Protein backbone atom coordinates (compact mmCIF):
# COMPACT_ATOMS: atom_id res chain seq x y z
CA UNK A 1 0.00 0.00 0.00
CA UNK A 2 1.49 3.29 -1.15
CA UNK A 3 -0.14 5.30 1.62
CA UNK A 4 1.42 3.13 4.20
CA UNK A 5 4.92 3.58 2.77
CA UNK A 6 4.67 7.36 2.64
CA UNK A 7 3.41 7.70 6.18
CA UNK A 8 6.11 5.34 7.40
CA UNK A 9 8.70 7.58 5.80
CA UNK A 10 7.07 10.54 7.49
CA UNK A 11 7.40 8.83 10.84
CA UNK A 12 11.06 8.11 10.29
CA UNK A 13 12.01 11.64 9.19
CA UNK A 14 13.40 14.14 11.68
CA UNK A 15 10.54 16.54 11.06
CA UNK A 16 7.42 14.47 10.66
CA UNK A 17 5.28 15.81 7.87
CA UNK A 18 1.97 16.03 9.74
CA UNK A 19 -1.34 15.20 8.20
CA UNK A 20 -4.74 16.22 9.50
CA UNK A 21 -6.99 13.90 11.43
CA UNK A 22 -9.38 13.82 8.52
CA UNK A 23 -6.82 12.74 5.95
CA UNK A 24 -5.38 10.17 8.35
CA UNK A 25 -8.85 8.77 8.83
CA UNK A 26 -9.43 8.77 5.09
CA UNK A 27 -6.13 7.05 4.32
CA UNK A 28 -6.96 4.29 6.77
CA UNK A 29 -10.60 3.80 6.01
CA UNK A 30 -11.02 4.59 2.32
CA UNK A 31 -9.27 1.49 0.92
CA UNK A 32 -11.33 -0.76 3.18
CA UNK A 33 -14.56 1.06 2.48
CA UNK A 34 -13.86 1.00 -1.25
CA UNK A 35 -13.25 -2.73 -1.08
CA UNK A 36 -16.48 -3.26 0.84
CA UNK A 37 -18.31 -0.91 -1.48
CA UNK A 38 -17.25 -2.76 -4.60
CA UNK A 39 -17.55 -6.27 -3.23
CA UNK A 40 -20.76 -5.69 -1.29
CA UNK A 41 -22.45 -2.97 -3.33
CA UNK A 42 -22.19 -4.80 -6.62
CA UNK A 43 -24.04 -7.94 -5.48
CA UNK A 44 -26.53 -5.73 -3.69
CA UNK A 45 -27.15 -3.68 -6.83
CA UNK A 46 -27.42 -6.84 -8.87
CA UNK A 47 -29.93 -8.29 -6.41
CA UNK A 48 -31.83 -5.01 -6.68
CA UNK A 49 -31.91 -5.38 -10.46
CA UNK A 50 -33.06 -9.01 -10.17
CA UNK A 51 -35.86 -8.01 -7.85
CA UNK A 52 -37.56 -6.03 -10.63
CA UNK A 53 -37.40 -8.89 -13.10
CA UNK A 54 -38.90 -12.26 -13.57
CA UNK A 55 -36.06 -14.66 -14.26
CA UNK A 56 -36.77 -17.85 -16.19
CA UNK A 57 -34.44 -20.73 -16.87
CA UNK A 58 -36.81 -23.08 -18.66
CA UNK A 59 -36.55 -22.69 -22.42
CA UNK A 60 -33.42 -20.57 -22.17
CA UNK A 61 -32.54 -17.80 -19.73
CA UNK A 62 -34.80 -14.78 -19.88
CA UNK A 63 -35.31 -11.72 -17.69
CA UNK A 64 -38.56 -9.79 -18.04
CA UNK A 65 -39.02 -6.43 -16.38
CA UNK A 66 -41.99 -6.63 -14.04
CA UNK A 67 -41.59 -3.46 -11.98
CA UNK A 68 -42.73 -3.77 -8.39
CA UNK A 69 -44.68 -6.94 -9.02
CA UNK A 70 -42.25 -9.13 -7.07
CA UNK A 71 -42.43 -6.83 -4.07
CA UNK A 72 -46.21 -6.74 -4.19
CA UNK A 73 -46.29 -10.53 -4.43
CA UNK A 74 -44.33 -10.82 -1.17
CA UNK A 75 -47.12 -9.01 0.65
CA UNK A 76 -49.71 -11.53 -0.46
CA UNK A 77 -47.47 -14.53 0.12
CA UNK A 78 -48.70 -16.56 3.07
CA UNK A 79 -45.35 -18.36 3.37
CA UNK A 80 -43.53 -15.02 3.71
CA UNK A 81 -45.59 -13.98 6.72
CA UNK A 82 -45.37 -17.35 8.43
CA UNK A 83 -41.59 -17.47 7.80
CA UNK A 84 -41.25 -13.97 9.17
CA UNK A 85 -43.07 -14.89 12.37
CA UNK A 86 -40.81 -17.97 12.70
CA UNK A 87 -37.76 -15.75 12.24
CA UNK A 88 -38.99 -13.44 15.00
CA UNK A 89 -39.82 -16.34 17.30
CA UNK A 90 -36.40 -17.89 16.72
CA UNK A 91 -34.58 -14.57 17.11
CA UNK A 92 -36.31 -13.46 20.31
CA UNK A 93 -35.84 -16.87 21.94
CA UNK A 94 -32.23 -17.08 20.81
CA UNK A 95 -31.40 -13.63 22.15
CA UNK A 96 -33.02 -14.28 25.54
CA UNK A 97 -31.44 -17.72 25.90
CA UNK A 98 -28.01 -16.59 24.71
CA UNK A 99 -27.85 -13.68 27.12
CA UNK A 100 -29.39 -15.67 29.97
CA UNK A 101 -27.05 -18.62 29.56
CA UNK A 102 -24.14 -16.25 28.91
CA UNK A 103 -24.84 -14.43 32.16
CA UNK A 104 -25.19 -17.71 34.05
CA UNK A 105 -21.91 -19.05 32.69
CA UNK A 106 -20.18 -15.75 33.46
CA UNK A 107 -21.35 -15.90 37.08
CA UNK A 108 -20.07 -19.46 37.41
CA UNK A 109 -16.73 -18.58 35.83
CA UNK A 110 -16.36 -15.58 38.09
CA UNK A 111 -16.77 -17.62 41.24
CA UNK A 112 -14.28 -20.30 40.22
CA UNK A 113 -11.42 -20.46 42.71
CA UNK A 114 -7.89 -20.02 41.36
CA UNK A 115 -6.99 -23.66 40.88
CA UNK A 116 -10.15 -24.27 38.85
CA UNK A 117 -9.52 -21.40 36.42
CA UNK A 118 -8.56 -23.78 33.63
CA UNK A 119 -12.23 -24.76 33.40
CA UNK A 120 -12.78 -21.42 31.65
CA UNK A 121 -10.87 -22.77 28.68
CA UNK A 122 -13.37 -25.64 28.40
CA UNK A 123 -16.50 -23.52 28.74
CA UNK A 124 -15.46 -21.34 25.77
CA UNK A 125 -15.26 -24.29 23.35
CA UNK A 126 -18.85 -24.36 21.98
CA UNK A 127 -18.25 -20.89 20.62
CA UNK A 128 -15.50 -22.29 18.38
CA UNK A 129 -17.95 -24.75 16.80
CA UNK A 130 -19.22 -23.66 13.40
CA UNK A 131 -22.95 -23.04 12.94
CA UNK A 132 -23.19 -26.00 10.52
CA UNK A 133 -21.36 -28.17 13.07
CA UNK A 134 -23.69 -27.06 15.84
CA UNK A 135 -26.58 -27.90 13.52
CA UNK A 136 -25.26 -31.43 13.01
CA UNK A 137 -24.65 -31.88 16.75
CA UNK A 138 -28.15 -30.83 17.71
CA UNK A 139 -29.73 -32.80 14.87
CA UNK A 140 -28.33 -36.10 16.18
CA UNK A 141 -28.92 -35.02 19.77
CA UNK A 142 -32.59 -34.25 19.20
CA UNK A 143 -33.89 -36.79 16.67
CA UNK A 144 -36.09 -39.53 18.07
CA UNK A 145 -34.11 -42.34 16.47
CA UNK A 146 -30.65 -41.24 17.64
CA UNK A 147 -31.30 -38.66 20.29
CA UNK A 148 -30.59 -38.16 23.93
CA UNK A 149 -34.31 -38.09 24.80
CA UNK A 150 -34.78 -41.69 23.66
CA UNK A 151 -31.55 -42.78 25.34
CA UNK A 152 -32.60 -41.30 28.68
CA UNK A 153 -36.06 -42.89 28.37
CA UNK A 154 -34.37 -46.23 27.70
CA UNK A 155 -32.32 -45.82 30.88
CA UNK A 156 -35.57 -45.70 32.81
CA UNK A 157 -36.77 -48.83 31.07
CA UNK A 158 -39.05 -47.19 28.54
CA UNK A 159 -38.86 -48.11 24.87
CA UNK A 160 -40.52 -44.91 23.77
CA UNK A 161 -39.03 -42.67 21.11
CA UNK A 162 -38.64 -39.13 22.36
CA UNK A 163 -38.23 -36.68 19.53
CA UNK A 164 -37.03 -33.23 20.55
CA UNK A 165 -37.34 -31.91 17.00
CA UNK A 166 -41.13 -31.88 16.87
CA UNK A 167 -43.15 -29.58 14.62
CA UNK A 168 -44.54 -27.83 17.67
CA UNK A 169 -41.28 -26.98 19.45
CA UNK A 170 -38.65 -27.16 16.74
CA UNK A 171 -38.05 -23.38 16.87
CA UNK A 172 -37.44 -23.55 20.63
CA UNK A 173 -35.08 -26.46 20.15
CA UNK A 174 -33.20 -24.54 17.44
CA UNK A 175 -32.93 -21.54 19.76
CA UNK A 176 -31.36 -23.70 22.47
CA UNK A 177 -28.69 -24.89 20.03
CA UNK A 178 -28.04 -21.37 18.78
CA UNK A 179 -27.63 -20.20 22.38
CA UNK A 180 -25.27 -23.11 23.07
CA UNK A 181 -23.14 -21.91 20.18
CA UNK A 182 -23.04 -18.20 21.04
CA UNK A 183 -23.41 -17.96 24.83
CA UNK A 184 -19.76 -18.69 25.75
CA UNK A 185 -18.56 -15.58 23.92
CA UNK A 186 -21.17 -13.48 25.73
CA UNK A 187 -20.09 -15.07 29.00
CA UNK A 188 -16.47 -14.11 28.45
CA UNK A 189 -17.24 -10.50 27.58
CA UNK A 190 -19.53 -10.23 30.61
CA UNK A 191 -16.86 -11.83 32.78
CA UNK A 192 -14.38 -9.20 31.58
CA UNK A 193 -16.85 -6.56 32.75
CA UNK A 194 -17.54 -8.23 36.08
CA UNK A 195 -13.86 -8.46 36.92
CA UNK A 196 -13.55 -4.68 36.74
CA UNK A 197 -16.26 -4.11 39.37
CA UNK A 198 -14.34 -3.26 42.55
CA UNK A 199 -14.67 -5.71 45.46
CA UNK A 200 -15.31 -2.65 47.65
CA UNK A 201 -18.82 -2.36 46.20
CA UNK A 202 -19.62 -5.93 47.23
CA UNK A 203 -18.33 -5.21 50.73
CA UNK A 204 -20.55 -2.15 50.92
CA UNK A 205 -23.52 -4.20 49.76
CA UNK A 206 -22.83 -6.62 52.58
CA UNK A 207 -22.74 -3.81 55.11
CA UNK A 208 -26.09 -2.62 53.75
CA UNK A 209 -27.37 -6.17 54.28
CA UNK A 210 -28.43 -6.53 50.70
CA UNK A 211 -29.75 -9.93 49.73
CA UNK A 212 -27.98 -11.97 47.04
CA UNK A 213 -30.57 -10.90 44.50
CA UNK A 214 -30.32 -7.23 45.44
CA UNK A 215 -26.54 -7.38 45.24
CA UNK A 216 -26.78 -8.93 41.80
CA UNK A 217 -29.33 -6.37 40.67
CA UNK A 218 -27.68 -3.24 42.08
CA UNK A 219 -23.97 -4.08 42.04
CA UNK A 220 -23.22 -6.81 39.50
CA UNK A 221 -25.66 -5.93 36.73
CA UNK A 222 -25.34 -2.14 36.14
CA UNK A 223 -21.78 -2.18 34.73
CA UNK A 224 -22.78 -5.00 32.35
CA UNK A 225 -25.59 -3.15 30.67
CA UNK A 226 -23.68 -1.77 27.73
CA UNK A 227 -22.13 -5.16 26.92
CA UNK A 228 -25.55 -6.76 27.21
CA UNK A 229 -26.90 -4.20 24.78
CA UNK A 230 -24.08 -4.79 22.27
CA UNK A 231 -24.60 -8.54 22.37
CA UNK A 232 -28.36 -8.20 22.10
CA UNK A 233 -27.72 -6.40 18.80
CA UNK A 234 -25.08 -8.87 17.58
CA UNK A 235 -27.19 -11.90 18.49
CA UNK A 236 -30.29 -10.38 16.90
CA UNK A 237 -28.48 -9.81 13.60
CA UNK A 238 -26.79 -13.22 13.62
CA UNK A 239 -30.02 -15.05 14.50
CA UNK A 240 -31.97 -13.33 11.74
CA UNK A 241 -29.19 -14.02 9.21
CA UNK A 242 -28.52 -17.60 10.17
CA UNK A 243 -28.97 -20.19 7.49
CA UNK A 244 -26.34 -22.94 7.66
CA UNK A 245 -27.22 -23.82 11.25
CA UNK A 246 -30.86 -24.46 10.35
CA UNK A 247 -29.92 -26.05 7.04
CA UNK A 248 -27.83 -28.79 8.67
CA UNK A 249 -30.09 -29.26 11.68
CA UNK A 250 -33.65 -29.45 10.38
CA UNK A 251 -33.67 -28.46 6.66
CA UNK A 252 -36.62 -26.26 7.53
CA UNK A 253 -38.58 -29.25 8.81
CA UNK A 254 -40.38 -31.10 10.11
CA UNK A 255 -42.85 -30.20 7.41
CA UNK A 256 -41.71 -26.60 7.07
CA UNK A 257 -42.13 -25.94 10.80
CA UNK A 258 -38.66 -24.37 11.03
CA UNK A 259 -38.68 -22.70 7.64
CA UNK A 260 -37.49 -19.29 8.82
CA UNK A 261 -37.12 -16.44 6.35
CA UNK A 262 -33.56 -17.32 5.29
CA UNK A 263 -34.60 -20.91 4.63
CA UNK A 264 -37.69 -19.89 2.64
CA UNK A 265 -35.42 -17.57 0.63
CA UNK A 266 -33.03 -20.41 -0.05
CA UNK A 267 -35.89 -22.56 -1.32
CA UNK A 268 -37.25 -19.84 -3.58
CA UNK A 269 -33.86 -18.93 -5.07
CA UNK A 270 -32.02 -22.25 -5.16
CA UNK A 271 -34.72 -24.87 -5.41
CA UNK A 272 -37.44 -23.07 -7.37
CA UNK A 273 -34.84 -20.87 -9.13
CA UNK A 274 -37.24 -17.95 -8.89
CA UNK A 275 -34.38 -15.47 -8.62
CA UNK A 276 -36.32 -12.24 -9.07
CA UNK A 277 -38.85 -13.09 -6.39
CA UNK A 278 -36.13 -14.39 -4.06
CA UNK A 279 -34.19 -11.14 -4.47
CA UNK A 280 -37.28 -9.05 -3.70
CA UNK A 281 -37.96 -11.06 -0.56
CA UNK A 282 -34.35 -10.82 0.55
CA UNK A 283 -34.70 -7.04 0.65
CA UNK A 284 -37.58 -7.49 3.05
CA UNK A 285 -35.30 -9.60 5.23
CA UNK A 286 -32.60 -6.94 5.09
CA UNK A 287 -35.16 -4.29 6.02
CA UNK A 288 -36.38 -6.40 8.93
CA UNK A 289 -32.81 -6.77 10.24
CA UNK A 290 -32.05 -3.06 9.90
CA UNK A 291 -35.33 -1.93 11.44
CA UNK A 292 -34.94 -4.36 14.36
CA UNK A 293 -31.44 -3.15 15.21
CA UNK A 294 -32.62 0.44 14.69
CA UNK A 295 -35.44 -0.04 17.18
CA UNK A 296 -33.06 -1.65 19.66
CA UNK A 297 -30.76 1.33 19.34
CA UNK A 298 -33.44 3.98 19.73
CA UNK A 299 -35.24 2.31 22.61
CA UNK A 300 -32.22 1.08 24.51
CA UNK A 301 -28.82 1.89 23.01
CA UNK A 302 -29.12 5.67 23.19
CA UNK A 303 -29.92 5.45 26.88
CA UNK A 304 -26.85 3.29 27.54
CA UNK A 305 -24.55 5.56 25.56
CA UNK A 306 -25.60 8.69 27.41
CA UNK A 307 -24.55 7.22 30.73
Amino acid at each position, binding site marked *: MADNVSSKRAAGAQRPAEIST*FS*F*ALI*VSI*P*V*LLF*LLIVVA*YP*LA*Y*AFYLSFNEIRFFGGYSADWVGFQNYAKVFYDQSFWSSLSKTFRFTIETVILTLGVGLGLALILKH*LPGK*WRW*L*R*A*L*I*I*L*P*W*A*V*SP*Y*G*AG*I*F*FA*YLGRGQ*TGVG*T*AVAAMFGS*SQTINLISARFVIEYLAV*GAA*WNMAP*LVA*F*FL*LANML*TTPQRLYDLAKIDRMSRLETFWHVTLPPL*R*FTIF*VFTCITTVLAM*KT*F*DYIFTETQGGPGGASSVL*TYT*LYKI*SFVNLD*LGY*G*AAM*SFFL*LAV*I*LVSTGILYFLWGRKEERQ
Partner: protein
Amino acid sequence: MIGRTRTIWLVLAVAVALLWTFLPMYWTVKYAFMTKTEIARFPPMLFPHQPNLASFFNIFGFDYTAQDGTVYKASGQARQIMLGLRNSLLVAAIVTAITTVVVVPLAYVFARLEFPLKGKLLAAILLSVSLPPVSTLIPFYTLYVQLGLTGTMTGLIIVTLTITIPIVAWMLIGFFRNLPPVELLARVDGFSRLYVLTRIIVPMASSGIMVAAVIAFLFSWNEYVYAQILVTGSNAVTLPAAMSGFLFQVPEPAQLAASLLLSLLPPFVIAFFLQKHIAEMNFA
Protein backbone atom coordinates in the same frame (compact mmCIF):
# COMPACT_ATOMS: atom_id res chain seq x y z
CA MET B 1 -21.13 -24.01 57.15
CA ILE B 2 -21.97 -21.24 54.69
CA GLY B 3 -18.71 -21.90 52.91
CA ARG B 4 -19.56 -25.56 52.48
CA THR B 5 -23.07 -25.03 51.00
CA ARG B 6 -21.56 -22.47 48.65
CA THR B 7 -18.99 -24.99 47.49
CA ILE B 8 -21.66 -27.61 46.89
CA TRP B 9 -23.71 -25.18 44.82
CA LEU B 10 -20.65 -24.14 42.86
CA VAL B 11 -19.70 -27.74 42.12
CA LEU B 12 -23.26 -28.43 40.99
CA ALA B 13 -23.30 -25.35 38.79
CA VAL B 14 -19.97 -26.29 37.23
CA ALA B 15 -21.24 -29.82 36.57
CA VAL B 16 -24.32 -28.47 34.81
CA ALA B 17 -22.19 -26.05 32.78
CA LEU B 18 -19.86 -28.84 31.70
CA LEU B 19 -22.75 -31.12 30.76
CA TRP B 20 -24.34 -28.29 28.76
CA THR B 21 -21.00 -27.66 27.05
CA PHE B 22 -19.98 -31.19 26.18
CA LEU B 23 -23.12 -33.31 25.84
CA PRO B 24 -24.15 -31.95 22.40
CA MET B 25 -20.63 -32.43 21.06
CA TYR B 26 -20.11 -35.83 22.62
CA TRP B 27 -23.38 -37.17 21.25
CA THR B 28 -22.20 -36.84 17.64
CA VAL B 29 -18.46 -37.21 18.14
CA LYS B 30 -18.95 -40.68 19.65
CA TYR B 31 -20.11 -41.87 16.22
CA ALA B 32 -16.57 -41.39 14.93
CA PHE B 33 -15.54 -44.40 17.03
CA MET B 34 -18.55 -46.59 16.29
CA THR B 35 -19.48 -49.00 13.53
CA LYS B 36 -22.54 -48.61 11.34
CA THR B 37 -24.43 -51.33 13.18
CA GLU B 38 -23.64 -49.73 16.52
CA ILE B 39 -24.89 -46.37 15.26
CA ALA B 40 -28.12 -47.88 13.95
CA ARG B 41 -28.83 -49.68 17.25
CA PHE B 42 -32.05 -48.77 19.05
CA PRO B 43 -32.21 -47.41 21.71
CA PRO B 44 -29.14 -45.27 20.93
CA MET B 45 -25.93 -46.37 22.64
CA LEU B 46 -24.40 -44.02 25.17
CA PHE B 47 -20.82 -44.89 24.23
CA PRO B 48 -19.01 -47.08 21.68
CA HIS B 49 -18.68 -50.60 23.09
CA GLN B 50 -15.77 -51.48 20.85
CA PRO B 51 -14.21 -48.16 19.94
CA ASN B 52 -12.30 -48.21 16.67
CA LEU B 53 -10.54 -45.67 14.51
CA ALA B 54 -11.89 -46.95 11.18
CA SER B 55 -13.56 -43.71 10.13
CA PHE B 56 -10.40 -41.69 10.71
CA PHE B 57 -8.50 -44.03 8.39
CA ASN B 58 -11.35 -43.92 5.89
CA ILE B 59 -11.60 -40.15 5.57
CA PHE B 60 -7.89 -39.97 4.81
CA GLY B 61 -8.27 -42.59 2.08
CA PHE B 62 -7.09 -45.76 3.85
CA ASP B 63 -8.91 -49.06 4.25
CA TYR B 64 -9.21 -50.30 7.81
CA THR B 65 -9.31 -53.92 8.87
CA ALA B 66 -10.99 -54.53 12.20
CA GLN B 67 -9.90 -57.32 14.57
CA ASP B 68 -12.78 -59.52 13.49
CA GLY B 69 -11.63 -59.19 9.88
CA THR B 70 -14.25 -56.72 8.69
CA VAL B 71 -12.78 -54.32 6.17
CA TYR B 72 -13.93 -50.71 6.27
CA LYS B 73 -13.37 -49.25 2.83
CA ALA B 74 -11.65 -45.93 2.32
CA SER B 75 -14.07 -43.10 1.68
CA GLY B 76 -14.58 -41.85 -1.86
CA GLN B 77 -14.51 -38.33 -0.45
CA ALA B 78 -11.01 -38.69 1.01
CA ARG B 79 -9.37 -36.52 -1.63
CA GLN B 80 -11.91 -33.76 -1.05
CA ILE B 81 -11.42 -33.94 2.72
CA MET B 82 -7.66 -33.63 2.45
CA LEU B 83 -7.90 -30.81 -0.08
CA GLY B 84 -10.50 -29.19 2.15
CA LEU B 85 -8.26 -29.37 5.18
CA ARG B 86 -5.37 -27.73 3.34
CA ASN B 87 -7.54 -25.08 1.68
CA SER B 88 -9.42 -24.23 4.85
CA LEU B 89 -6.15 -23.65 6.71
CA LEU B 90 -4.80 -21.54 3.85
CA VAL B 91 -7.93 -19.46 3.37
CA ALA B 92 -8.42 -18.93 7.10
CA ALA B 93 -4.77 -17.90 7.58
CA ILE B 94 -4.88 -15.38 4.74
CA VAL B 95 -8.27 -13.98 5.76
CA THR B 96 -7.12 -13.63 9.38
CA ALA B 97 -3.95 -11.82 8.36
CA ILE B 98 -5.66 -9.39 5.99
CA THR B 99 -8.58 -8.74 8.36
CA THR B 100 -6.31 -7.97 11.30
CA VAL B 101 -4.00 -5.68 9.36
CA VAL B 102 -6.89 -3.76 7.83
CA VAL B 103 -9.28 -3.59 10.76
CA VAL B 104 -6.94 -2.48 13.57
CA PRO B 105 -6.23 0.98 12.08
CA LEU B 106 -9.82 1.25 10.90
CA ALA B 107 -11.26 0.52 14.33
CA TYR B 108 -8.73 2.85 15.95
CA VAL B 109 -9.72 5.72 13.68
CA PHE B 110 -13.42 5.22 14.25
CA ALA B 111 -13.11 4.74 17.99
CA ARG B 112 -10.67 7.51 18.86
CA LEU B 113 -10.69 10.28 16.29
CA GLU B 114 -13.32 12.81 15.31
CA PHE B 115 -13.68 13.64 11.65
CA PRO B 116 -16.41 14.64 9.21
CA LEU B 117 -18.65 11.92 7.75
CA LYS B 118 -17.69 9.54 10.55
CA GLY B 119 -21.28 8.60 11.36
CA LYS B 120 -22.13 7.90 7.73
CA LEU B 121 -19.02 5.81 7.09
CA LEU B 122 -19.67 3.83 10.25
CA ALA B 123 -23.25 3.21 9.17
CA ALA B 124 -21.94 1.85 5.86
CA ILE B 125 -19.78 -0.67 7.72
CA LEU B 126 -22.63 -1.71 9.97
CA LEU B 127 -24.92 -2.12 6.98
CA SER B 128 -22.62 -4.75 5.59
CA VAL B 129 -22.78 -6.63 8.91
CA SER B 130 -26.52 -6.92 8.42
CA LEU B 131 -26.39 -8.41 4.92
CA PRO B 132 -27.63 -12.01 5.00
CA PRO B 133 -25.40 -14.29 2.89
CA VAL B 134 -28.50 -15.95 1.43
CA SER B 135 -29.46 -12.75 -0.36
CA THR B 136 -26.02 -11.97 -1.78
CA LEU B 137 -25.26 -15.53 -2.87
CA ILE B 138 -26.87 -15.43 -6.31
CA PRO B 139 -25.35 -12.06 -7.25
CA PHE B 140 -21.94 -13.21 -6.04
CA TYR B 141 -22.30 -16.39 -7.98
CA THR B 142 -23.19 -14.66 -11.28
CA LEU B 143 -20.41 -12.11 -10.75
CA TYR B 144 -17.92 -14.87 -10.06
CA VAL B 145 -18.97 -16.84 -13.12
CA GLN B 146 -18.27 -13.78 -15.24
CA LEU B 147 -14.91 -13.12 -13.59
CA GLY B 148 -13.89 -16.78 -13.56
CA LEU B 149 -13.60 -16.75 -9.78
CA THR B 150 -15.85 -19.73 -9.02
CA GLY B 151 -13.89 -22.66 -7.69
CA THR B 152 -10.92 -20.49 -6.71
CA MET B 153 -9.49 -19.71 -3.30
CA THR B 154 -9.05 -16.05 -4.28
CA GLY B 155 -12.78 -15.77 -4.81
CA LEU B 156 -13.53 -17.40 -1.50
CA ILE B 157 -11.06 -15.16 0.33
CA ILE B 158 -12.68 -12.04 -1.13
CA VAL B 159 -16.18 -13.13 -0.09
CA THR B 160 -15.02 -14.16 3.36
CA LEU B 161 -13.39 -10.77 3.90
CA THR B 162 -16.75 -9.11 3.36
CA ILE B 163 -17.99 -11.08 6.38
CA THR B 164 -14.98 -10.76 8.67
CA ILE B 165 -13.99 -7.12 8.15
CA PRO B 166 -17.30 -5.51 9.21
CA ILE B 167 -18.01 -7.74 12.19
CA VAL B 168 -14.46 -7.62 13.56
CA ALA B 169 -14.40 -3.84 13.04
CA TRP B 170 -17.63 -3.58 14.98
CA MET B 171 -16.21 -5.49 17.94
CA LEU B 172 -12.84 -3.72 17.97
CA ILE B 173 -14.32 -0.23 17.84
CA GLY B 174 -16.05 -0.93 21.16
CA PHE B 175 -12.79 -2.18 22.59
CA PHE B 176 -10.64 0.75 21.44
CA ARG B 177 -13.11 3.23 22.91
CA ASN B 178 -12.29 2.07 26.41
CA LEU B 179 -8.54 2.36 26.28
CA PRO B 180 -7.16 5.21 28.39
CA PRO B 181 -6.69 8.40 26.32
CA VAL B 182 -2.90 8.30 26.20
CA GLU B 183 -2.45 9.20 22.58
CA LEU B 184 -3.20 12.86 23.20
CA LEU B 185 -0.23 13.03 25.52
CA ALA B 186 1.91 11.23 22.99
CA ARG B 187 0.76 13.62 20.29
CA VAL B 188 1.67 16.58 22.49
CA ASP B 189 5.11 15.03 22.85
CA GLY B 190 5.42 15.25 19.09
CA PHE B 191 4.98 11.65 17.98
CA SER B 192 3.38 11.04 14.60
CA ARG B 193 -0.01 9.38 14.28
CA LEU B 194 1.46 6.25 12.83
CA TYR B 195 3.96 6.03 15.67
CA VAL B 196 1.19 6.47 18.21
CA LEU B 197 -0.83 3.74 16.54
CA THR B 198 1.91 1.16 16.06
CA ARG B 199 4.00 1.75 19.17
CA ILE B 200 1.48 2.80 21.78
CA ILE B 201 -2.06 1.78 20.86
CA VAL B 202 -1.31 -1.63 19.34
CA PRO B 203 0.72 -2.92 22.31
CA MET B 204 -1.89 -1.55 24.71
CA ALA B 205 -4.68 -3.25 22.78
CA SER B 206 -2.84 -6.49 22.15
CA SER B 207 -5.44 -8.73 23.75
CA GLY B 208 -8.25 -7.05 21.84
CA ILE B 209 -6.34 -7.49 18.61
CA MET B 210 -5.64 -11.12 19.43
CA VAL B 211 -9.35 -11.70 20.00
CA ALA B 212 -10.15 -9.92 16.73
CA ALA B 213 -7.77 -12.27 14.93
CA VAL B 214 -9.37 -15.30 16.58
CA ILE B 215 -12.84 -14.13 15.57
CA ALA B 216 -11.70 -13.56 11.99
CA PHE B 217 -10.13 -17.02 11.92
CA LEU B 218 -13.27 -18.67 13.26
CA PHE B 219 -15.60 -16.91 10.84
CA SER B 220 -13.40 -17.92 7.95
CA TRP B 221 -12.73 -21.47 9.11
CA ASN B 222 -16.41 -22.03 9.83
CA GLU B 223 -17.82 -20.39 6.68
CA TYR B 224 -20.09 -22.81 4.89
CA VAL B 225 -22.82 -21.02 2.91
CA TYR B 226 -20.60 -19.34 0.32
CA ALA B 227 -18.19 -22.26 0.16
CA GLN B 228 -21.01 -24.67 -0.58
CA ILE B 229 -22.07 -22.65 -3.65
CA LEU B 230 -18.75 -21.27 -4.85
CA VAL B 231 -16.15 -24.02 -4.38
CA THR B 232 -17.86 -27.39 -3.79
CA GLY B 233 -16.38 -30.12 -5.95
CA SER B 234 -13.50 -27.94 -7.16
CA ASN B 235 -9.87 -27.98 -6.13
CA ALA B 236 -10.55 -24.99 -3.89
CA VAL B 237 -13.07 -26.90 -1.76
CA THR B 238 -12.95 -26.12 1.97
CA LEU B 239 -13.43 -28.57 4.80
CA PRO B 240 -17.06 -27.66 5.60
CA ALA B 241 -18.06 -27.99 1.95
CA ALA B 242 -16.16 -31.29 1.60
CA MET B 243 -17.75 -32.64 4.76
CA SER B 244 -21.30 -31.93 3.64
CA GLY B 245 -20.93 -34.88 1.25
CA PHE B 246 -21.19 -37.19 4.27
CA LEU B 247 -24.32 -35.38 5.36
CA PHE B 248 -26.37 -35.15 2.20
CA GLN B 249 -25.13 -37.33 -0.67
CA VAL B 250 -24.51 -40.64 1.11
CA PRO B 251 -25.16 -40.24 4.84
CA GLU B 252 -22.11 -41.57 6.68
CA PRO B 253 -22.53 -40.58 10.34
CA ALA B 254 -19.22 -42.12 11.43
CA GLN B 255 -17.15 -40.41 8.77
CA LEU B 256 -19.11 -37.20 9.21
CA ALA B 257 -18.35 -37.27 12.93
CA ALA B 258 -14.68 -38.01 12.28
CA SER B 259 -14.26 -35.13 9.85
CA LEU B 260 -16.28 -32.84 12.11
CA LEU B 261 -13.95 -33.70 14.98
CA LEU B 262 -11.00 -32.98 12.71
CA SER B 263 -12.49 -29.62 11.76
CA LEU B 264 -12.96 -28.73 15.43
CA LEU B 265 -9.35 -29.25 16.43
CA PRO B 266 -7.75 -26.03 15.11
CA PRO B 267 -10.46 -23.71 16.50
CA PHE B 268 -10.44 -25.59 19.81
CA VAL B 269 -6.70 -25.24 20.20
CA ILE B 270 -6.91 -21.54 19.41
CA ALA B 271 -9.92 -20.87 21.66
CA PHE B 272 -8.38 -22.92 24.47
CA PHE B 273 -5.14 -20.99 24.54
CA LEU B 274 -6.47 -17.53 23.82
CA GLN B 275 -9.51 -17.53 26.10
CA LYS B 276 -7.76 -15.50 28.77
CA HIS B 277 -7.47 -12.63 26.32
CA ILE B 278 -11.20 -12.77 25.68
CA ALA B 279 -11.72 -12.40 29.41
CA GLU B 280 -9.93 -9.04 29.08
CA MET B 281 -12.30 -7.67 26.43
CA ASN B 282 -14.00 -4.88 28.29
CA PHE B 283 -16.62 -2.71 26.63
CA ALA B 284 -17.99 -0.62 29.43
